[in-house]
């Protein structure tokens, strides 16, 4: 009997150890064998892995980081204020009625595979986006433009109506025709599934390897047209545990962190040789009211929400400063208007004395005066028109930083003004359901727009009901303001119109802009210098809108190859010998290992 057990156990263990060795061997071939001696390598920790390496399927933050490093655009977002600046084009001129834009393209450009880059590639890319209706990019080409390339260094954009689209600039990465032409006309899934590791681009760094769930690496592009970066390679490592990621930064295993939750600010802020960057916000936390009327919806949201007095009272009952402090640990500013602060040229900052302000007493008074009284003394007001109590179902996205926590505070604030709220935390998958079916009274989610405010204003227009509109708010005056700024060619006039639209939306309260949270980055101050913020010194340090940082980063002192924690090889060898020794001795004694030391 004992020998049977021993047979089975030995066989099992033998098989499993063999599998283990096979594992280590097979796993080794999966990682790239690139020597790094003498190379200048920047190591960045991220919380979000790449979703895709395909520029036509970009989704989350890390995707954009890679795309922005690998590809150029016609014009780039400048680091100072995100307005258009030269990139592939040194400049673009328009004719008098803004229907024709002519851009001068730099001569002698090459792709990372050595092929020439000309105006033809730009025209191809734009036509590809339009013809294949690529969702992320097609909205940058209003009014069916056509493109001409009389010579390799001239690119002409012709529109049927006056447009400022080329100067926004369009956030469309220019791709090589000789790589992508075979996919023109294919279905969307096929286009999105094309693997681009390694990629072919014109930017300073090209994605050379991607191990999903683990890391992605970009190597320097030898054909890049601009100044040669001091960096040879950039390694992004995926961390699923943020505390561990911070630890790795403090240990020196990585040089920078892209993305951190607010509750961990304190563990970074007071560390030696580590600095925190609170990036000026390019998104906002949104409490959106539902006005009903989504196509196919069977839910009737709270009728009282159609009353401006009720919506205003709700806004005044919310202590936005408390949300900033308690939910975001101070890494945010209170919200007011729908165009994010990072678009500094367009964002309307309403002075504090002109805002509704936090005032629950006044809010209660307003509701009393409007007739929403608590007739049965249960702490909940009733609607004088329907007799129904004021109760709200409020889904909150658990995938949006701070949404659920802010929601919990808001339930308390609403209680103070006699409104009962049920918070329904939901993943984005479920939020999407609520959104599409209109099955909510208000929800807490986010919006982040583009540097140009057009898209953000667009989603609030009336015919976006059933498409991008949060709660089907329909206001013809707002629609008019949107149209006016959308067709205004003069930048300064347009700025006025955009601010008017924001003020009007603020006054009508179709939702409440709760906060502008900062994105958080951290970096070691003793490894690299030359971080370029976009936009401005409070902007993203790691490439998001442009790759200026990659061009200006230099190592401090000698080549930085990163510190590493780890037991040196000889310790493992000694340990292995010791274990083997113990096993041999015990086997000789004919007894099993005594586990006292274990």
């Amino acid at each position, binding site marked *: 009997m004992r020998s049977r057990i021993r047979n089975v156990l030995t066989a099992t263990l033998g098989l499993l150890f063999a599998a283990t060795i096979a594992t280590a061997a097979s796993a080794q071939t999966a990682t790239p064998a690139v020597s790094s001696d003498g190379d200048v390598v920047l190591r960045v920790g991220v919380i979000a892995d790449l979703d895709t390496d395909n520029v036509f*399927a970009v989704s989350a933050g890390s995707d954009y980081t890679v795309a922005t490093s690998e590809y150029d655009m016609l014009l780039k977002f400048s680091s100072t204020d995100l307005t258009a600046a030269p990139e592939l084009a040194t400049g673009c001129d328009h004719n008098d009625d803004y229907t024709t834009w002519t851009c001068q393209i730099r001569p002698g450009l090459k792709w990372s595979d050595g092929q020439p880059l000309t105006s033809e590639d730009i025209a191809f890319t734009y036509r590809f986006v339009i013809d294949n209706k690529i969702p992320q990019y097609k909205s940058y080409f209003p009014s069916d433009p056509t493109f001409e390339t009389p010579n390799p260094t001239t690119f002409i954009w012709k529109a049927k109506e006056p447009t400022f689209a080329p100067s926004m600039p369009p956030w469309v990465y220019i791709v090589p025709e000789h790589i992508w032409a075979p996919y023109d006309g294919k279905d969307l899934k096929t286009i999105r599934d094309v693997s681009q590791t390694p990629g072919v681009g014109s930017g300073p760094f090209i994605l050379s390897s991607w191990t999903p769930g683990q890391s992605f690496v970009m190597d320097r592009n030898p054909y890049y047209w601009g100044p040669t970066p001091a960096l040879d390679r950039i390694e992004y490592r995926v961390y699923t545990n943020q505390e561990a990621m911070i630890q790795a930064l403090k240990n020196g295993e990585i040089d920078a962190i892209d993305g951190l939750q607010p509750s961990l600010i304190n563990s970074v802020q007071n560390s030696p040789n580590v600095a925190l960057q609170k990036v000026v916000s390019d998104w906002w936390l949104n409490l959106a009211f539902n006005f009903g009327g989504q196509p196919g919806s069977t839910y009737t949201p709270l009728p009282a929400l159609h009353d401006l007095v009720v919506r205003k009272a709700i806004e005044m009952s919310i202590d936005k400063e408390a949300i900033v402090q308690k939910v975001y640990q101070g890494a945010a500013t209170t919200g007011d208007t729908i165009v994010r602060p990072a678009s500094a040229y367009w964002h309307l900052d309403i002075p504090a004395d002109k805002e509704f302000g936090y005032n629950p007493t006044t809010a209660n008074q307003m509701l009393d005066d409007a007739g929403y009284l608590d007739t049965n003394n249960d702490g909940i007001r009733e609607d004088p028109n329907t007799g129904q109590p004021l109760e709200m179902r409020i889904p909150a996205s658990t995938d949006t930083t701070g949404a659920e926590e802010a929601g919990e505070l808001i339930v308390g604030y609403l209680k103070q003004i006699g409104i009962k709220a049920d918070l329904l935390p939901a993943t984005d998958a479920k939020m999407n359901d609520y959104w599409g079916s209109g099955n909510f009274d208000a929800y807490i989610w986010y919006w982040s727009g583009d540097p140009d405010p057009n898209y953000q204003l667009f989603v609030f227009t009336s015919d976006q009901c059933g498409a991008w509109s949060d709660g089907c708010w329909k206001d013809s005056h707002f629609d008019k303001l949107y149209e006016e700024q959308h067709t205004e060619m003069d930048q300064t006039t347009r700025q006025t119109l955009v601010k008017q639209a924001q003020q009007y939306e603020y006054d009508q309260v179709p939702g409440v802009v709760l906060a502008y949270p900062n994105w958080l980055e951290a970096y070691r101050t003793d490894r690299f210098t030359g971080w370029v913020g976009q936009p401005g010194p409070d902007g993203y340090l790691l490439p998001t809108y442009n790759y200026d940082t990659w061009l200006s980063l230099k190592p401090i002192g000698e080549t930085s190859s990163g510190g590493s924690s780890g037991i040196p090889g000889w310790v493992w060898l000694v340990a292995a010998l010791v274990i083997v020794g113990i096993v041999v001795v015990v086997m000789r004694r004919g007894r099993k290992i005594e586990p006292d030391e274990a």
Partner: protein
Amino acid sequence: MGSRRYLLSKCLQAVVTLWFVLTFNFFLFRVLPGDPVGLLARSEHFTPEDVARLQHDQGLDLPMLEQYGVYLKNVATGDLGESLRTGIPVRELIGSRIWKTVLLVGLGTILASWFGVLIGIRGGWRRGSRFDTTSQYSSLVLYAMPEGWLGMLLLLVFSGWLHWFPAGGYASVDETGVAYLVDLLDHLFLPLLTLTLGYIGGYAIVMRSSMIETINEDFVHTARAKGVPERLVRRKHVVPNAFLPSFTLIILSFGFVLGGAIVIETVYSWPGLGLLTYNAINTLDYPVIQGVFLIASAAVIVANLLADITYGYLDPRIKQA
């Protein structure tokens, strides 16, 4: 022969169970709210038309039963489909991570069961001794302790304070050869330690109880009466019989190895199957979810089958019954 029919019927049962699991998994995730393409609306600026278009391209607008039929046919030919998010074939996604899970969880299960059983044997044999009391309480504490918390603690001490080990991840990017092996061991040590400590308690407790029960059996008294030395009583009579429940436990545990250890994987950023599953569920990536659940279920079913078969081999009394 009787045992061949027994074997055949067990295998047939396994296949039927697997088919049931496949079907259940397929419909279970499609019943969840939301749809994978609709999720892209907010982050990728998809209009409703874009959503419908991509759904069509991915075959998600076909009638449910038709999708199910396509799925069964693909599985039969070994095609697990492609990730809806990345287009990477599911087989490749699972293949690149399965070994990392097997390495960590498999090795951890081996070590935990090996040491756990030994501790249980010694504790049960010398019941009431100082070793027994200490090991019993330690086992209970470890068994009850949340693995995530233990992991964070070990990370803080060994990586944060002592800098002996890196703060997570599978391996550094650019090592090869022996350096790679050393680097792997550096990254593997802490999660492996956490996992082993987390599982060891269970095995020790089960083995110990079993030992105590078996010691009081009649045949043990007989052996002692015959004058067999204590050492041999333990080795030849008590342990082989007491080991049977633990053996079942161990074999079944190996079945669960492929389920991954998501908490440990998250704490240590270990890119295994557990994390792949979690992300896939969050983004409703049906092919990936189905693929992972298929593999995990198959592993459990096969492990069960193996346990049934080898149990019969180990204990002749079972086969004759």
